[in-house]
């Protein structure tokens, strides 16, 4: 067995040293009644070459996703990933190690996370960054729990344009705590401001709004947060498309108290939905209520700069049931991937990539509307996802796109089960599409 170095002979020697005559003696404490009396019924072991055939065979039952470019986003975006990142992520030192409990042997992980925190802090204009919660949905739920701890109130207001999976997850996490969850409707593609005035009261712990929202719409966060703060309520901005941070005004400059952001767009593959990563960003005064791990700078004994896990007194391994969260293993490796990605993009790259996403999406929308087959239900500012209504047959549209190696946009009516959106398509456009491809898409869909 190639993963077990000790030979049978060596195992015998070891058993002899232990002072037993057989392996069975070592497991005598397992009661006979709970022992497995049969051999596990599993497929036979495969050689490495058979294994490769078997799993490649399964993968081939998927569509050729490398060739298929997605016109769908909805919380998972296909962006270009530079080869330098992919090559660096092959280094075993980053991925065969454990959580950095021993800082002397973990400076690579620790410094890398510190650099990521620094980047996200600059992109969000928030001073404290928790680098890794599993994904945007769980990060939003953790942000809601954090707001409840900070305010000691019992009501949460959610925008109905928060990603449906995020809404579901928040509801699941909050269910045991008897929290009143109120949904804010939307109007013309954006969260309804008037309704917020109506729903907000002294019991409200937090208002949660995604921007760009589920329809890609850029919310008026400044007005929303100002209104929210009138009731000593915290404002949580959720971000599913982190690429937008390159050009859009930073949450910290618009009055957000907590930001829950998926960082999948920063150098992570789609991977059928996971593992991705999300960050939480907040203000300094809230640091003792944040969930999860955070890295800080300090000195070693010789006065050298180094990095450690810090503010640990909040965590489960120390505080047990009084911890701010149960989080232990997170998605640290994806933080390093994002750090490398952001280092490669740099100041100019994040601006230009962010801008070109915006421009390409608007270019496609313009062309589609010009074709006469599409109308836009909303007049709203959006980033790189937009909603249009299609007049023709949806099945034919999807077939045509697939024939041309394109994954169709999201059918919003099917996803959120809302009658009004039967004809609506949510397009996502990233930098991976050229002008020619966007023109071709328009031509295919105008036929």
């Amino acid at each position, binding site marked *: 067995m190639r993963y077990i170095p000790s030979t049978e002979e060596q195992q015998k020697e070891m058993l002899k040293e232990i002072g037993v005559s057989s392996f069975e003696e070592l497991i005598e404490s397992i009661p006979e009644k709970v022992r497995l009396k049969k051999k596990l019924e599993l497929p036979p072991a495969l050689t490495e070459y058979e294994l490769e055939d078997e799993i490649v065979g399964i993968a081939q039952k998927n569509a050729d996703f490398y060739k298929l470019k997605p016109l769908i986003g909805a919380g998972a975006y296909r962006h270009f990933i530079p080869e330098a990142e992919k090559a660096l992520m092959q280094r075993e030192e980053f991925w065969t190690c454990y959580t950095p409990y021993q800082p002397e042997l973990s400076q690579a992980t620790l410094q890398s996370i510190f*650099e990521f925190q620094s980047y996200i802090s600059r992109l969000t204009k928030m001073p404290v960054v928790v680098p890794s919660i599993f994904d945007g949905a769980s990060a939003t739920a953790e942000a809601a729990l954090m707001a409840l701890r900070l305010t000691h109130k019992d009501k949460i207001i959610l925008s109905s344009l928060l990603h449906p999976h995020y809404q579901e997850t928040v509801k699941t996490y909050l269910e045991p705590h008897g929290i009143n969850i109120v949904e804010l409707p939307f109007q013309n593609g954006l969260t309804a401001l008037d309704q917020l005035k109506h729903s907000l009261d002294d019991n409200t712990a937090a208002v949660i709004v995604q921007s760009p929202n589920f329809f890609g719409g850029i919310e008026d966060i400044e007005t929303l947060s100002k209104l929210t703060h009138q009731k000593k309520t915290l404002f949580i901005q959720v971000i599913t498309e982190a690429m937008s941070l390159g050009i859009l005004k930073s949450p910290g400059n618009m009055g957000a108290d907590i930001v829950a952001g998926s960082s999948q767009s920063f150098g992570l593959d789609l991977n*059928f939905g996971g593992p991705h990563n999300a960050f939480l960003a907040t203000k300094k005064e809230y640091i003792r209520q944040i969930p999860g791990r955070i890295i800080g700078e300090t000195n070693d004994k010789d006065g050298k700069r180094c990095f450690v896990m810090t503010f640990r007194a909040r965590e489960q391994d120390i505080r047990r049931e009084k911890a701010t969260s149960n989080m232990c293993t997170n998605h640290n490796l994806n933080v390093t991937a994002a750090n490398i990605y952001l280092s490669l993009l740099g100041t100019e790259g*994040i601006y230009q990539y962010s801008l070109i996403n915006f421009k390409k999406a608007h270019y496609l929308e313009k062309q589609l509307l010009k074709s006469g087959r599409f109308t836009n239900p909303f007049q709203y500012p959006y980033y790189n996802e937009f909603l249009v209504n299609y007049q023709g047959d949806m099945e034919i549209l999807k077939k045509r796109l697939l024939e041309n190696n394109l994954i169709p946009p999201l059918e919003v009516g099917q996803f959120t089960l809302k009658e009004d959106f039967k004809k609506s398509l949510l397009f996502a456009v990233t930098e991976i599409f050229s002008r020619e491809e966007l023109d071709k898409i328009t031509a295919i869909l105008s036929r």
Partner: protein
Amino acid sequence: MKLIFEKSVPGRDGVSLPKDLFNDIKLEELLPAELLEQEKKSLTEVSEVDVIRHFTRLSKFNYGVDDGLYPLGSCTMKYNPRINEKMAGLANFVYAHPLSSPELIQGSLELMYRLNQMLCEITGMDQFTMAPASGAHGELTGILIMRKHFLELGEKRNKMLIPDSAHGTNPASAAMGGFEVVEIKSNERGTVDLDSLAQAMDENTVGLMLTNPNTVGLFDEGIETIQRIIHDKGGLLYYDGANLNASLGINRPGDAGFDVVHLNLHKTFSTPHGGGGPGAGVIGVKSKLIPYLPTPIVGFNENSKKYYFKDVGTKSIGMVRSFWGNFSVLVKTFTWILSLGAEGLYQCSKASIINANYVLTKLKDYYKPSYDRFCGHECTLTGREYKKYGIKTLDIAKRLMDYGFHPPTIYFPHFEPYAEETIMIEPPESEGKEVLDDFIKIMIKISKEAKESPELLTSAPQRTPISRTDDVLAVKRPILTYDDELELKDELNYQEKDINY
């Protein structure tokens, strides 16, 4: 080492920038100025070469399983086979959008479906959810399933029993699930004290969360009585799968009466820890709890021979994350199981149990074990007797680094009087006898050093990129970003030896 920020040179690019700038689309005409940042956000300006050198050099400051023994107890730091990584990296998996229509994702669905069958067979459970992203995430999911079960029965139960030896995630997850935690003491055998358990279990209690073998590495031989105590009062038994590496092909939690099981695929199932994730904490349940699983699970239509996402139904606890699971971790797990088969899995557990008992036998005269009995896949020793020389377990751990080993888990588990100054060693099956002999030799050498020249231990480590860290300062003077550091520039006076990097 320098930060990437300190290597920034204005004007450098690390990525190819767009050529067609779509100048016909004008940002300022489409978005009001107040939605935009007025200045470019400053990150760093470094070339691709700078990035490659920075991270390659930085990577060398980590120690991974590929560098040598990594005997962290309760963490199962086993070798991560390369074929797993290659299979998880297949383009048809990697580029699959999670919201693609079912006919495009038959392969991904088949893999999830077949993995469910395999995990059910290995654990004796009836159905898994692949959604949870980590062990603790799985715990929360499992606890919410248990909660929902009692809500549906109309029973109000508000307490969760947890042994004092449990991982911190257990009580933290129970609290997130809305339960009051009741701690159950361990007995002189290192296992759950049955009298205390019987006393604590009542009709207001959801059940017990148990790791087996437990976190001291001992199999709880009272498991039959435990499950009877819990089930007699209508409770449910939760299995923390952190230590499944001792049980493959030997015993199954499902057969021992566990109702909910979480598995850390990044432990027993060989997927990498990644410096703290991503892993996966899939949850298996007995059939009566299937209606409460997070939605959806993967189904197979016998007529059309197609796989599909099946809605769990109205009793589901809902979603615990976006999308379906940490899919690439599932591919690695699937690959690993197929590469071993039933006999291979058994051999893994057998080898890991022999390894742990070998280390225990060889070291018990030097580091008194918490309990003098055979262990499972890990053993718990203590550094108690070196206290009189002014040596703490921490010093022993740091000294190990000087000899090129990653230290074991220390100070966990911690409960008086049996488990203090603990050193928990888990040498998984991927460690051969020679490696263990080297480790044993060094541990014995350190025990001599502790008596004869304790300063070697208290000043350790000397051969690592940095020496011991000032963790108190990190809280007292928080520097959480490079901008924090810039603000304090004048008072920071680092002794940097490697200024060129």
